[in-house]
């Protein structure tokens, strides 16, 4: 049965109690911090990989890093950054902010939410542990067959295949959680067209994840079957088809980049309107544009495959569809500009990043339109022009928005404001560093430098460009270090951030910083778009509650999500090493007979069954335990 639970003024907990709290949490706010931490750790790994890549390319015919290692570096850099940095950081903000912005106490499926995190983390661990095994994926983040297949592929690709399947499941269930949360758990009065734009973009992003991830999962399963079980999906000699992999990969891969950028668009919309003290311009068109981008995102995947020989008609169709996406994107850009125009603009660190985002993303977008011209693509394909394009949209777009989100929502998540001065230093080192690194790469590509090459010959006119690019990357690293210094310095400060430090417009700024366990003491009534601003404009100091004070039901913490993820991690190893020639007879037996693999699966399904059989009554927080302020009877 449910029991009362003391929330406030808890005595200082020991290390193990704190660890247990974090390992078993189903609280979306804590899960957000876990995603932030996980994403940041992998960002450091991916960032070091990037610096090593740029270091090797600093000089022609440089021999700092051998070719095989270089291939591993570019593969891991891309895979880690997309799947284990950008996605989790996006999920971090979705977890931290979305329930608050819709006036909800929790997400729809707290258990599933936690499971999503741990699957992501163990998947990322599995991918990166390949470094320790010295068997690293080296077929590019796109893992095209037959290079990644059983005939030509290295053992390391197995880590890629397994790691991404595990984290992919995590992303999928996380998305389902957010879709249902948005549909069913909005506060009274919050219709769909009164939701903040970050909620809309998160919602559409979740739909994209729902539809895109099954395709890559199938692709990875097929590749796994080819590599481990002798299947023939991609073996041309047995009637397989290598282009099929590309199709499956990019049917996922293109929506994936919209999965990354749409939440970034949402963050920018929030930041820009808050720091202009002005309503977001053209809200309805923003919503419409988001939906359109999401839909069109599924219709353009083969623009990654113009040179495979699909034929003129297919190329033309995909070229036109790709260009079409520029239209709703352009609508968004103009709306941000019109929001800023005539507003009382404050250039806090968050808004600096947002303002830096807008022209940079436009630059990335227009090179995208250039790439969409199918005949021209034959020149750009596999050159540094492509590398420049996608770094402009991913780093200049998503990473900038993530920095903006950090500075904007840090007080809400941690109860402390990041140092503004250090924030500005971060911007003014990272942003110029970024342009220095990647702007020149457009020209390197146009001058013929191919991508994914571990070195280049002297005398081709590429030396200066590469040197400049590498120097830029060091500057970006400085920016990141300054940001990390900021984070640690802020952590040392006492928590005391105000509830609404930015004079915000949305519901998350109506509750204390950091947010209490139950989010809202009383769920608020929403009377319009920018719900908090509506109340503030009428002189109110707080939201009108939609319900009387009463006991609040909370879900119980559980270790099962962590156990389930570990189980799949173990099973993955069991399958990967099944045919390895171990010296030790017992170990060889364990793997050859799939004992380890089956043990992992049994543990996984066992946890699922345990979860099904034992219903969670949760626990209640009672009104007497809630802080005294603002209680309405």
């Amino acid at each position: 049965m449910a029991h009362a639970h003391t929330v406030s003024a808890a005595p200082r907990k020991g290390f193990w109690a704190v660890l247990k709290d974090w390992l078993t949490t189903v609280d979306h706010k804590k899960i957000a911090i876990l995603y932030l931490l996980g994403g940041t750790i992998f960002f450091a790994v991916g960032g070091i990989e990037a610096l090593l890549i740029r270091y090797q390319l600093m000089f022609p015919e440089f021999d700092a890093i051998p070719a095989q290692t270089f291939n591993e570096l570019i593969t891991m850099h891309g895979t880690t950054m997309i799947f284990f940095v950008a996605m989790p950081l996006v999920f971090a903000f979705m977890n931290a902010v979305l329930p608050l912005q819709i006036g909800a106490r929790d997400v729809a499926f707290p258990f599933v939410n936690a499971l999503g995190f741990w699957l992501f983390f163990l998947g990322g661990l599995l991918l990166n542990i390949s470094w320790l095994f010295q068997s690293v994926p080296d077929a590019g983040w796109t893992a095209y067959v037959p290079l990644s297949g059983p005939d030509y592929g290295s053992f390391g690709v197995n880590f890629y295949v397994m790691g991404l399947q595990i984290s992919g499941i995590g992303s999928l269930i996380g998305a389902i959680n957010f879709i249902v949360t948005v549909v069913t758990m909005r506060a009274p009065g919050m219709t769909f067209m009164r939701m903040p734009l970050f909620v809309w973009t998160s919602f559409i992003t979740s739909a994209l994840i729902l539809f895109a991830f099954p395709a890559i999962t199938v692709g990875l399963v097929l590749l796994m079957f080819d590599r481990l079980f002798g299947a023939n999906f991609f073996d041309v000699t047995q009637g397989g088809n290598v282009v099929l992999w590309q199709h499956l990969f990019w049917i996922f891969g293109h929506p994936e980049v919209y999965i990354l950028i749409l939440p970034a668009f949402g963050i920018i919309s929030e930041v820009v309107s808050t720091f202009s003290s002005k309503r977001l311009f053209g809200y309805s068109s923003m919503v419409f544009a988001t939906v359109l981008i999401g839909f069109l995102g599924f219709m353009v995947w083969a623009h990654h495959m113009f040179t495979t020989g699909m034929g003129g008609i297919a190329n033309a169709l995909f070229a036109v569809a790709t260009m079409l996406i520029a239209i709703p994107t352009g609508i968004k850009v103009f709306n941000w500009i019109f929001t800023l125009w005539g507003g009382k603009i404050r250039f806090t660190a968050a808004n600096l990043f947002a303002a830096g985002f807008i022209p940079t993303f436009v630059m990335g977008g227009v090179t995208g339109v250039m790439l969409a011209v199918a005949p021209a693509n034959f020149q750009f394909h596999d050159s540094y022009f492509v590398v420049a394009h996608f770094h402009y949209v991913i780093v200049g777009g998503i990473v900038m928005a993530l920095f903006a989100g950090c500075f904007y929502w840090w007080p809400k998540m941690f109860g402390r404001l990041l140092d503004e001065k250090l924030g500005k230093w971060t911007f003014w080192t990272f942003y110029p560093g970024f342009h220095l690194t990647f702007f020149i790469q457009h020209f390197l590509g146009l001058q013929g430098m191919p991508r994914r090459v571990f070195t280049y010959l002297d005398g081709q006119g590429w030396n200066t460009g590469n040197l400049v690019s590498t120097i830029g990357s060091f500057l970006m690293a400085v920016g990141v270090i300054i940001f990390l210094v900021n984070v640690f310095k802020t952590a040392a400060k006492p928590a005391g951030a105000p509830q609404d430090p930015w004079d915000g417009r949305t519901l998350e700024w109506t509750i204390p910083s950091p947010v209490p366990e139950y989010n809202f003491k009383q769920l608020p009534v929403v009377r319009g778009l920018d719900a908090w601003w509506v109340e503030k404009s009428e002189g109110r100091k707080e939201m009108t509650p939609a319900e009387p004070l009463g006991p609040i039901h909370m879900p119980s913490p559980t270790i099962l999500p962590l156990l389930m993820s570990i189980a799949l991690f173990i099973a993955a190893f069991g399958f990967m090493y099944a045919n390895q020639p171990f010296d030790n007879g017992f170990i060889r037996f364990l793997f050859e007979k799939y004992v380890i693999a089956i043990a992992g699966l049994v543990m996984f399904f066992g946890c699922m069954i345990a979860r099904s059989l034992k219903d969670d009554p949760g626990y209640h927080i009672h009104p007497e335990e809630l802080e005294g302020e603002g209680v309405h009877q």
Partner: protein
Amino acid sequence: MTNEQGGHAATDVVRRKHVHEGPRNHLISYAISLVLTAFAFFAVIYADQLETWFIVSFLIVLAFFQALVQALFWMHMKDKGHVQQRIFLTGGVIVTFTCVVMALLWCWW
């Protein structure tokens, strides 16, 4: 009201008084499914008397209709409070359709 799922159970019962909540609709769906399946099998059994393009199109249409009947009736997709379900399942079908087009048109090597 935050959510529109299912509405109020009590008023639902009142409003649905004139609609059969018995097995009738479901048994009809079962019968339709059997008939559609039978047609599909017979079309293939008598393939030598029909043109291939006709049979293939016929089979696809039959399959879609059967899927529709099962989704609408047995999975309650036609019922009130299933707006999101329809939207998302349609989305899934659209993406599936794209995959099928891909496989049929652009995988010819």
